[in-house]
């Protein structure tokens, strides 16, 4: 009996097998997982010989059919994993395989898109910048934009705040917080005196300083975008205060007991009157300068991945000063500007299911500026509301498709002398962008941005493209291309409406290498401006220009223990024919050569940090351009180049031990610094009288700026609780 049944079985098996050999298709299927048993979707599966290929689905499952027989092999590949070749024998009716791929540690250093940008984030590794590195550069006056002038691409413009990047004006750099525009990052400008930033840089955990070629998700900045990401929940509750020679601040952050929400409040007050009575200033101040600022925030974690954040900032300023009158130097003319601003930002981000990510933002900015000067009175109220939605579909291997839209509604009104000002503008933008990882070495980001503005009544479409190619040795080449449009500034639109967007086309080539806590970066670019605003008899879009150059950045955290330094060099060749320039000129805010050094040294045994920053720049051109009636156009009456600029800033901070006994020891210390410690007399240009007969140098309000103060912060460490919770 038994023998018979075995025979029967063999016969059946053979006939089945024969049937298979006689030409049926062989099915191969299976599941691809990683070592932890997680499925790997979108892994490539290729059969050889034959070349049949497929990809695993979202459950890591694949299935292939082949006519091939005998010995064959399957190759499994997926970015981030080591390729695996599996030998198989094509004899059975169906082959079921369980494949385990091991991670490829080398490739975890994934290629990243980085042309044109400096990223400073709290996730920075090695010698990459962190937000703290960026805003602890000496001499930054708590202004992120000032701190970033120590990076290549930015010009050293001592008489104005803001970032002048690659031949662009300060207005061509825009700042964004959690996706929304910070329209008025600094207190209202005062001629010849840099003004503070309104937002405290400590708010941000991530800073992306793009000096060109930035993502399609941002727009309306022809030269540069400063993309800021605010911090999420604090690690612990804390409070701090600081008392400095000219400003004081205090704040607190409270983290809820369950660790899922927090709120915080800070106040800052600065009055320079006392300081100015001790350290003589060029201008004779009759008001302040005085700055008041308060902000508040709450952050709520929703579900597993949702984060709702609200930030509100209220501030005001008052600066009044007298200077010798340019037209009759025996007299003095006064200038007073009062400003009030409120910036409010509500943002929400969450994951929607496995693959989708949602980011939304709503911002409201209210701004008032009241300027009084000789022959001029101006009062402007402006409101800006922005709504923004970005959706991201994530695919395996970090690939993503991002798209979204935003709308800006702005309404300005006021008076300039006797004429009324009114401007209402709707600007709508839609954008889409794809992150493509083409291989382990090659990544691309391709995007497009369309914008329409109601005031010019015109739209634009701007393509953006970035490529990154990572080499075996860890070095990476980056390429970027893009068109960047910007509406003419409000001041221009008050006077003329029939204008197009100005535009700049960027081409960027970059090489970056990070290793051993050192970072080297070199970047070359070409930027072509078109449709710049020009005033001839009428205001129009007749201007154009170019900027090209090369920049080097090197940072070293390794060579000397506890010493961190970076050096940069910026070469810039730019000409532009815009505003009242009679023809293409090197603009007065651009110089060919700039070099900066930033040094941070930690004397650990002494609990002392020393920060030094140095900037050198060749001279900038200056012009006396006036309207010439006989020539029916603008004419250069005088021009020249200033002497070289060279400024050294020093800051020393010393931590002290106090309340040693208390369980939560506070961090306390002294900080003191001098800007322009060597007492150089930089010259930024000249102011000309109406007839050109008198020119007065524009220089620093005081040669040196000193500050000294005490700060203290108290924190309640809650990590112990967390640790106990997860250990039990």
């Amino acid at each position: 009996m038994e023998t018979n049944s075995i025979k029967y079985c063999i016969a059946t098996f053979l006939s089945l097998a024969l049937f298979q050999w006689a030409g049926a298709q062989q099915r191969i299927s299976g599941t691809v997982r990683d070592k932890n048993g997680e499925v790997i979707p979108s892994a490539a599966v290729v059969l050889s010989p034959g070349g049949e290929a497929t990809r695993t689905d979202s459950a890591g499952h694949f299935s292939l059919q082949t006519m091939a027989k005998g010995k064959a092999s399957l190759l499994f590949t997926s970015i981030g994993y080591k390729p695996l070749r599996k030998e198989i024998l094509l004899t059975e009716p169906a082959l079921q395989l369980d494949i385990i791929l091991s991670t490829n540690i080398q490739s975890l250093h994934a290629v990243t898109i980085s042309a044109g940008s400096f990223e400073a984030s709290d996730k920075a590794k090695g010698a990459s910048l962190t937000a703290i590195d960026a805003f602890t550069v000496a001499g930054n006056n708590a202004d992120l934009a000032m701190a970033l002038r120590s990076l290549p691409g930015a010009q050293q413009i001592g008489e104005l705040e803001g970032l002048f990047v690659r031949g662009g004006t300060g207005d061509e750099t825009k700042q964004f917080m959690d996706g929304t525009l910070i329209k008025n990052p600094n207190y209202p400008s005062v001629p010849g005196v840099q003004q503070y930033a309104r937002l405290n840089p400590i708010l941000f955990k991530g800073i992306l300083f793009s000096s060109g070629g930035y993502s399609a998700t941002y727009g309306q900045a022809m030269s540069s975008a400063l993309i800021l990401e605010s911090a999420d929940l604090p690690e612990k509750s804390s409070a701090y205060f600081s008392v400095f020679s000219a400003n004081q601040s205090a704040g607190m952050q409270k983290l809820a007991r369950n660790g899922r929400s927090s709120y915080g409040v800070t106040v800052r007050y600065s009055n320079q009157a006392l300081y100015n009575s001790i350290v003589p200033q060029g201008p004779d101040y009759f008001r302040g300068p005085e700055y008041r600022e308060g902000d508040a925030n709450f952050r709520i974690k929703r579900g597993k991945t949702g984060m709702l954040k609200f930030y509100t900032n209220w501030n005001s300023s008052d600066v009044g000063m007298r200077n010798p009158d340019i037209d009759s130097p025996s007299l003095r003319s006064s200038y007073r500007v009062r400003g009030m601003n409120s910036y409010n930002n509500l943002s929400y981000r969450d994951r929607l299911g496995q693959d989708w990510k949602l980011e939304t933002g709503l911002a409201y900015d209210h701004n008032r500026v009241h300027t009084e000067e000789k022959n001029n009175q101006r009062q402007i109220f402006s409101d800006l509301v922005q709504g923004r939605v970005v959706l991201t579909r994530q695919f395996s291997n970090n690939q993503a498709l991002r798209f979204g839209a935003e709308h800006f509604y702005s309404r300005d009104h006021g008076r300039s002398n006797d004429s009324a000002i009114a401007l209402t503008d709707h600007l709508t933008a839609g954008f889409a962008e794809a992150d493509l990882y083409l291989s382990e070495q090659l990544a691309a980001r391709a995007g497009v941005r369309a914008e329409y503005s109601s005031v010019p009544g015109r739209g634009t479409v701007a393509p953006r493209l970035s490529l990154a190619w990572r080499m075996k040795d860890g070095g990476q080449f980056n390429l970027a291309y893009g068109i960047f449009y910007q509406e003419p500034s409000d001041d221009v639109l008050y006077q003329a409406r029939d204008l197009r967007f100005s535009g700049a086309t960027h081409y960027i080539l970059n090489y970056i290498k990070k290793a051993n806590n050192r970072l080297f970066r070199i970047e070359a670019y070409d930027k072509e401006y078109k449709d710049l605003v020009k005033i001839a008899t009428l205001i129009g879009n007749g201007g154009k220009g170019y900027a090209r150059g090369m920049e080097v950045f090197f940072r070293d955290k390794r060579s000397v223990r506890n010493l961190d330094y970076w050096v940069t060099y910026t070469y810039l060749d730019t000409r532009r024919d815009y505003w009242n320039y009679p023809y293409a000129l090197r603009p007065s805010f651009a110089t060919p050569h700039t070099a900066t050094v930033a040094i941070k040294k930690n004397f650990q045994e002494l609990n002392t940090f020393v920060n030094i920053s140095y900037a050198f720049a060749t001279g900038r051109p200056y012009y006396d351009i006036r309207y010439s009636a006989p020539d029916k156009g603008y004419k250069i009456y005088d021009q020249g180049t200033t002497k070289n600029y060279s400024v050294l800033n020093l800051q020393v901070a010393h931590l002290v031990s106090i309340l040693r006994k208390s369980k939560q020891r506070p961090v306390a210390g002294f900080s003191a610094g001098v800007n322009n410690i060597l007492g150089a007399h930089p010259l930024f240009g000249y102011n000309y009288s109406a007839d050109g007969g008198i020119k007065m140098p524009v220089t620093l309000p005081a040669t040196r700026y000193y500050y000294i103060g005490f700060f203290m912060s108290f924190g309640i460490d809650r990590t112990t609780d967390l640790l106990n919770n997860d250990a039990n």
Partner: protein
Amino acid sequence: MKKLIFSPLAISFFCISSFGQMQGAGALENAVAKLDGARTAKEYETLEKEFVRIAASEPKDWLPNYYAAYCNARIGFLYQDDGEEIEPYSERGEKQAQKAQSLLDTLQQKKELAEVYTVLSLVYRTRVFINPMTYGRKFGTLSQQYRARAQELDPGNPRAIYVRAWELYNIPKMWGGDKDQAKVLANQSLHLLENAGTGIQPHWGKAEDEELLRKYK
């Protein structure tokens, strides 16, 4: 009679099963012996893979995961001055240490838990090396807390004492660092390790202590 017939079978069965065990334990013993001589990141990387393989075949044993995590921590220490490299090792080490912890009976196996916490403390320390400025506050604290818990569970653990010595040596004086005390503890740890075995139970630490004491001079 029955007994007689049965016993050879039983013996052979016993042999086979113990042989099977020997293979597992043998592989681990072999790998741990190699670990005692490992010095370079590459060697630790090769060994880590071996421990991961052993962990897969011995899913109930905490030791292979523990040693894999230790390898990753060592790699992190060796890459101390190259923050760009460390993160993937730290992440793997953290997962492996947590896996090892999950295989322990936390109420009964206090000494074993102390070993795992010690390695977890090292793993978190390697996170700090990625960028002390940003990772220091969170992971430095975590590292110290796990070391403290290890010492609570097993005050005489020479490896936890070594980690404490490392902390005292490297933390600035103002925040409680004390190089002299570090030396005392490193010597104490070394003394406790004098009779450390060579089996599969954790016995590393001598080389680390000696390295720390060399720096002191």
